[in-house]
């Protein structure tokens, strides 16, 4: 066994310090530690994943059991790639995740920056911004259905009060339904993001700012030259994990809009659900699942590479 320093995965942890070999430890001891988690992952993730992969090459309605399963090779994949609805759904997923995540992260950062300065009622504010993160999707969906009602909803009543005579119809119109879901995502997510940013800001070395102030740098300049570069790795990490999560959003959409009006909120996860659970085309749904997984994989790798190239501290940084 070598003792060369090993690169941490995902630019993550502080690298394990170079140290002497651990004598006397049997080679299988670490495996004992890993075994329960490994067993769990193999049983509940890899096996079903393998099953899902197999199903993606078949035609299957589940209810007829395994007698009803039929091997169709790559048919499901070619169908998906030539299905305009698949591409439309994929596009909506990209819009939904691609807009909601940067906006959530940005608002979270703004809140964190504000909370990092003296502000009246800071403790209460932190609690309030974080509250949406502890609510289940059914409660979230139910109350937002009331709030977003075009005529009697609180949101549009407020907008009319502000002078917008014809505010958006939100989930009642194909033009604004996705926007409504994005707003809800921002509401639900930015408090969580801000908490993490606040902690990061508090760990920032204050002498850097002192030095910048002495050089006459204003607040914006300080942010651009010091704060942002230091936060970049964490921003990337948050962005990646949020993108993975958002691209799988399903429960909220199923509950609130059922993919409508029209198909305007039929994102990929919901289109899969329609094909699998409503039309009993589980093979096709699985194939779309595989494709969406590949898409997320590519996106993750790209962002990771980008972050590695841009990070101030390179691999050394503990952005987790």
């Amino acid at each position, binding site marked *: 066994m070598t003792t060369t320093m090993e690169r941490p995965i995902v630019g993550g942890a502080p690298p394990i310090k170079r140290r002497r070999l651990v004598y006397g430890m049997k*080679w*299988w001891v670490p*495996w*004992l530690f890993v*075994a*329960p988690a*490994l*067993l769990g992952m*193999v*049983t509940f993730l*890899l*096996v079903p994943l*393998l*099953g899902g992969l*197999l199903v993606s090459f078949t*035609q299957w*309605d*589940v*209810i*007829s*059991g*395994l*007698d*009803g399963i039929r091997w169709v090779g790559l048919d499901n994949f070619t169908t998906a790639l030539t299905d305009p609805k698949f591409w439309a759904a994929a596009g909506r997923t990209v819009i939904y995740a691609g807009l909601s995540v940067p906006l959530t992260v940005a608002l979270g950062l703004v809140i964190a920056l504000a909370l990092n300065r003296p502000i009246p009622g800071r403790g209460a504010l932190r609690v309030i911004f974080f509250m949406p993160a502890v609510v289940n999707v059914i409660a979230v969906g139910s109350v937002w*259905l009331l709030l*977003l*009602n*075009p*005529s009697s*909803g609180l949101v549009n009543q407020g907008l009319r009060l502000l002078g917008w005579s014809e505010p958006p*119809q*939100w*989930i*009642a*119109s*194909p033009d604004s339904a996705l926007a409504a879901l994005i707003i809800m995502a921002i509401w639900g997510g930015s408090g969580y993001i801000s908490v993490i940013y606040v902690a990061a800001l508090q760990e920032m070395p204050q002498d850097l700012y002192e030095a910048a102030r002495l050089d006459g740098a204003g607040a914006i300049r300080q942010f651009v030259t010091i704060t942002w570069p230091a936060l970049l790795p964490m921003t990337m990490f948050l962005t990646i994990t949020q993108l993975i999560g958002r691209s799988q959003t399903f429960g909220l959409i199923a509950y*609130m*809009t059922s*993919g*409508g*009006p*029209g*198909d305007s909120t039929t994102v990929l996860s919901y289109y899969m659900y*329609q094909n699998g*659970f*409503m*039309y*009993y*085309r589980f093979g096709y749904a699985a194939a779309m699942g595989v494709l969406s997984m590949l898409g997320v994989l590519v996106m993750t790798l790209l962002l990771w590479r980008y972050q590695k190239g841009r990070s101030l501290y390179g691999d050394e940084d503990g952005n987790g």
Partner: protein
Amino acid sequence: MSMGDRTFSRRSVLTGSLAAAGTALVASCGNSPSGGDAQTQGSAESGVINVWGAITLDRGVQELLDAFAAKYPDIQVNYEQFPNNTDGNLKLDTSLQGGAPVDVFFSYGAAAVARRTEAGYALDLTELAQSMPEAEPFTSSDPQRTALFDDKLFAIPTVYNPYLVYLNQDMLDAAGIDVPFDWTIEEFHEIATELTAGGFAESATYKSLPLAGMELGGDSQFAAGGESSSFDLPIWKQQFDLELAMEQDGTLFPMEQVLAQRVDLYAQSYFLGGQHAFYLDNPATLRFVKDLENYPHDFRTTFRPMPYLERGGQQWNTGSYEDAVQINANTSYPEAAKTFVQFWLQDGSEFMQTAGKVPSSLGPGQGAAAEALFPRLLGDDYEDLFDTDALTQVAFADDIQMSVTTITTALTEIANLRSSLTQQLRLGEISVDDMLGRLKAEADAAITTELAQG
């Protein structure tokens, strides 16, 4: 679960587990649903049965179960309530497929009946039905009753669900309008316009008229033979022209509101709140009308048949015999399950009436028998709240022709396509011709896909 005493070959641990996992998966796949070779236990008087239905216990089911327990103390019944929506139905399907204990289950709609029957989960109930006067008519090939599979009956409808128009009598009186019993679709639209234009109602109705179903019956969405859709027929254009016109002139509840409030889930509130003049539904809504606690209102509800395409013409009622009860082919207690089904259809039906369920033993032309149900069906104050004469006359009219759906190909997908395109039509995104063109093409594609898979 402890892995402590195992040893692993260093490299093969991952591949090994994968292989093992694969084997486990393959092994797990031995179950076949169509067995029907389950060991039979119990008898007609004893056993343990699990019943899956959508009606909640508080709506008569508990009383029915209590009565059943009193009559058959040796049959233990576990009632499993499932919501009648995609997830609820999928749960039932997966439970059937997975061999979870399901002995008796209810299927709502032709697609659900067909899916479960074709997959082999339904026991042949022909003999059972023939032994009961209440269910015997369903075993005949009467096209108004129910669909048979291979000349066998696998599902017995428990409820008679004709489509009716509920009307706010007080609102009509205030407007000085008398609605004839043989009104036409033009009159329906005219009266609706009068009521909304005159400020008597915010909107006239939540639903528009299903003209195609009225003209073509239960398989109205399919061309003859069932291999393509029928959306190129002129009646569909007529139907959606009317729906769009009503959306635009404000007689139809605005689609925007439907979407914003998920009104599909509680549309009756608007009728009972006095905002809408009509409500189109089957007798299930009767229970909301009589529920003054949750829907306080003081107007009288009257009834009319669905408007006629042509005065004096013969047309389909878009309602049908519904809430079909089925017995799992794999049940361990078939005799006890049959006892339960029989009880539900006979002694039990009175308990379901409080939930607005008119028993399937009744039908067109049986108004006299129906009056006995009124106290349960309509509540204690029924004389004040309901125009019972009109109800009898409308719901049990001799000329009612109930719809039967026999083609179920891609039914759910077509319904989704329709609802998605109707939303776009009513929101002004597309024209009727665009809509029908797309609906025809996409529905045909769905049918072709489904048939290719069948």
